[in-house]
């Protein structure tokens, strides 16, 4: 969703006339060719990439003054908690809301480069389809299997240490940065075949998702719930999922996930814990068979 707003604050005189050059990799629809387009917006202090995109959308003209369709992108909260606005900014995956223009220009003074995430199918321009990411949460049953939502008294007692361990994992906003930066997570973009029904296609797509790497975010969620006193009641089911095709074994320990995570979630710790749990589980299963 977009709702551009021009800033009320006016730029100081020193920045008058200064322009920010932006290069955007656009794509009109899935399956179409992508193309670069240049834009320029007047500089203002304290801008972030979202406000740059808002001005571009409002202007709907390229740098050479040609009228163009407004650039499309995802965003919502603008304070880095909703996980919507992930994109490749100057080649690196990050949230557009917390990407401050001043810092980007320090990084790369000539221009800001925006591209859609490369591991998910492009819907349009900077909007990608992250359904596979959410499917990952289903695969590892990332939930507490409660009986129902009626009153059964409080939840289990939890020590502050356990809470402090769990809380960071629980701040994962499903932005997909960890997946974008992961060299082991590769794009899955099935194309609907001629004559294929929507349901058949959705099923085939899901099958493909389910064979692909589940990703750091889902591994971490599995560990979050396997540590919860009630959540762990289906720990085996999660480990089963984590040791099936596309499971924890796909991790190559590049550790980019933890390096790019905007919430600094200890993803590699979760991965290693999942590795340990999978080891124990696999051995146990071998003997329990």
């Amino acid at each position: 969703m977009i709702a551009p707003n021009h800033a009320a604050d006016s730029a100081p005189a020193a920045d008058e006339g200064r322009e920010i050059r932006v290069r955007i990799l656009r794509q009109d629809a899935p399956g179409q060719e992508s193309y670069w387009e240049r834009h320029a917006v007047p500089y203002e202090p304290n801008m972030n990439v979202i406000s740059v995109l808002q001005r571009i959308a409002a202007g709907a003209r390229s740098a050479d003054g040609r009228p163009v369709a407004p650039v499309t992108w995802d965003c919502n909260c603008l304070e880095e908690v909703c996980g919507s606005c992930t994109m490749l900014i100057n080649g690196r995956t990050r949230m557009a809301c917390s990407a401050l223009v001043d810092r980007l220009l320090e990084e790369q003074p000539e221009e800001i480069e925006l591209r859609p995430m490369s591991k998910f199918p492009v819907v349009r321009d900077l909007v990608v389809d992250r359904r596979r990411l959410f499917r990952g949460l289903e695969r590892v049953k990332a939930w507490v299997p409660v009986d129902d939502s009626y009153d059964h008294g409080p939840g289990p007692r939890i020590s502050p240490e356990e809470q402090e361990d769990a809380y960071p994992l629980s701040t994962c906003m499903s932005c997909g940065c960890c997946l974008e930066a992961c060299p082991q997570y590769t794009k899955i973009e099935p194309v609907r075949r001629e004559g294929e029904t929507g349901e058949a296609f959705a099923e085939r797509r899901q099958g493909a998702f389910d064979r692909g790497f589940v990703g750091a975010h889902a591994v971490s969620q599995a560990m979050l719930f396997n540590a919860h006193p009630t959540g762990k009641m289906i720990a085996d089911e999660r480990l089963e999922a984590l040791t099936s095709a596309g499971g924890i074994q796909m991790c190559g320990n590049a550790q980019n996930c933890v390096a790019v995570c905007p919430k600094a979630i200890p993803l590699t710790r979760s991965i290693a814990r999942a590795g340990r749990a999978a080891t124990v589980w696999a051995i146990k299963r071998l003997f329990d068979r």
Partner: protein
Amino acid sequence: MAQPRVVVVGGGLAGLSATMRLAELGVTVDLLSLVPVKRSHSVCAQGGINSVNALTRQQGDSEWKHFDDTVYGGDFLQHQPPVKEMADWGPRIIDLMDRLGVPFNRTPEGFRDQRRFGGTLYKRTAFAGATTGQQLLYALDEQVRRHEVAGRVTKWEFWDFLAPVLDDTGRCRGAICQDLVSMQFRSFPADAVILASGGCGLVYGRSTMSMVCTGSAISRAYQHGAAYGNGEFIQVHPTAIPGADKLRLMSESARGEGGRVWVPRTPQDPRDPRTIPEAERCYFLEERYPKYKNLVPRDIATREIFDICTTEGLSVEKDRPCVYLDLTHLPRQELDRKLHGILEIYEKFQGVDPRDVPMKIFPAVHYSMGGLWVDYQRSATGGMEEGSPRNHQTSIPGLYAVGECDYQYHGANRLGANSLLSCIFSGLFCASGVIAGSQSSKRTAAEESSRLFDAALRREQDRHEALLGRRGSGDNPYQIHQELGALMTRVATVVRRNEQLSAAYDEVCALEDRWRRCAVSDTGNWTNQNVVFTKSLGDMFPLAKIILIGALQRDECRGAHFKPAFAVPGLQATDEAARRREAEEWCDRFASNTARWLKSTVARPGADGHPQIAYEDVDTSLIPPRPRLYGLVGADLIEEVWRERQQASEARVGGTGVGSGRPLAATS
């Protein structure tokens, strides 16, 4: 009869809790959302969720006191039975969320930790770091995902609710929605439609709200005849971080954990705030409100901050109004444990570490107490009768509203950490009534003639085509939105004046005219955000008008609605007898104002495009209204006088009267 089918619009706390409970009860739910539900605006709620708990109970707290704080904080402008029911459910809801795995902060012994929030003297607020809303939302999102896997829920993410479908009896039979990716239209026949679409902050341009909070869903329901209540009551949060694209919330929990608000006594003191000695700092909230200190209700804190910057000229910066919110005296480790999320936001967006340097903050539009008018059924115990189809039903039968988009719980001002409670409560609570209501209907949605839906769908398609086909005046929808936001922020936030409000109403009409003539720059039919935004902008005008006309007509001060022209000052006299007389007069004035204005504003769409305003009596049968005296000069004496009067009147009547049904008052 077959299990009903329900459409839920919005996947925040209210929508998800309704979906969870409905799915559990065997209902098939279509859950629609503008964004993946996990990205809903509820994630922005930071501080916590209120309820009486084992600890506060032993300090004298009770559900009743929570209820009392809520209606007192809300200046009595809410029907009391639903609020009582909510306060009663509080402990159960926290327990439930705890069971769902929300990582609430813990005491050393492993119990849930609590902190204090505004408008109460008890540590009633459970919290998970400083991202409580996010944590609560995720827990519900997970449960709904579980139901989705089990096939009871179908999520329609990136879908826009365009209109309710009403049959010839005026009953809601489903909804027309649009896929924001393929731009395809689809009708959703349903036995009930629940709107849980949140607030309408974008009417103000920049606010603490997320980009989806356009209010378009409620506006569309209103335009189809649903009544809108208390629109003029918009909460301006006292502490937000000013930004070019958004005003980012700085949670009340910062003050709940000991944060102090101050300004240098010297206007625009150029010194580093850390070097300014205590004596040269003005802790104005602590000085003026010795009882609640920095934790006065939000409307009051907001006005004080606004005042100290504008009227008293003590803003920290010259060009930009702001005050210090200071946490630097608190231990770092404690801050990280309890407030990490919000400190990180400040650090990331301002580039300054608030653990070392006081934050600069200023009020921002934050929450809409008003919303779609909804009904309720009073129970024998004075609460809300569970299972009644009237609960949370809008003035359109079969169309329900829960969460921020209803007007039910917060009256004229919402207390911090009560919205998370009201959202989850209303979502959970409404489910059984929704089912009962849909079963009482003679026909199911599936039996409804497809002609009804086809016609409604075609109407929306035509509207869309017309918008795409407009040959514009060259006016730009984004520009119009910016002007609308600036206008609304100027006249309808902290301080309201009739001449400004009435001029602004005309300006909004003019902006709406310009909107009718503006054209979209993208006329394609694939993920066209331009047309979606333009459409939702058009739906902001009815809401803006409701807010302005409601504010214009309400000639009093109540909660977040403050008109200096109608403010009642505190006691001036120093002589005891004169002071007593003033207090009596003050109470007289209060009583007459209550009689005149303790009424909900109810707006309905008029044929001429202007809202028709009516006033509805408020059910105050449980707690009689009393003066809201936070920090007022002479509060003690006024309170004394008021108490004497109450006692006298109770002795006369022999107990408080009990109100029953409450039909909408006739148009005044």
